[in-house]
């Protein structure tokens, strides 16, 4: 039985956030299959996918996306504040349908 949804489809979970010096996190309603993010502010955004154990940066005006299955995303800046939009695509596991 093939899925009725394309393999990379899923419900979008989006948020507009402000990052500052204090480390904060966003928790998605469910696990993601993909995360896309765009730094629309004027400062470098620092991101962590593992609760602050490792970090990477997203320069202002740039975006980041990857096929990752995560439930939470941690973020901060070194100086100032920056605004960013994040869209997580929900990991859907449709119930298998019985063959008719």
């Amino acid at each position, binding site marked *: 039985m093939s899925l009725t949804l394309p393999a990379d489809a899923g419900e979008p979970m989006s948020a507009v956030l*402000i990052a500052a010096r204090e480390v904060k996190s966003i928790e998605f309603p469910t696990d993601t299959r993909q995360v896309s993010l765009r730094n*629309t502010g*004027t400062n470098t955004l620092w991101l962590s996918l593992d609760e602050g154990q490792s970090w990477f940066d997203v320069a*202002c005006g740039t975006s980041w996306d990857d096929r990752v299955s995560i439930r939470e995303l941690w973020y901060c800046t*070194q100086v*100032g504040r920056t*605004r960013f939009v994040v869209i997580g695509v929900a990991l859907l596991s449709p119930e298998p349908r019985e063959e008719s």
Partner: protein
Amino acid sequence: MPLSHYPKTVDNVVFAWVQPPPPDVPPQPGFPDFLGRAFSELNRFRAPIVPGQSVVGFHDAQPFTRFYGSIACDQPLDVSLTFSNDEVAADGCIVSDDNIDSLNYDAHGLHQRYDPAKQEQTGKIFSMIFGRWIRIEAKAVGDVAPKFLRLFIRGSVF
């Protein structure tokens, strides 16, 4: 793993001083919040600059390749853009909002004397980037405090 795309900035104001300040108007329902915040959060104006006093702003310069902007005021101003290349502060700590004002701003990118009688010649700003951090200073050099002052500095990624 991360894939960072070539930058195209939406928000590029690194310093804004608008006197008198416009009122904050909430976003229109049903449309995106295009500004992303109230303008009063962006506007650094709190009170007119007393003659002989300065307003100073700091920002990360690294994301940008150059800075541009404009000045309009009823009084003369001394405007400067200087840059620091310090990786850490004097005590060895990383640069943060708490110590960015203590860095050595040794590179003078621009020093401009604004004359309200010469708006065309002195009312525009352009500077290359000469350091990791930028310091923006506007000093009131007239006899009285300005009745209006608009100073914008924006960063360009191209």
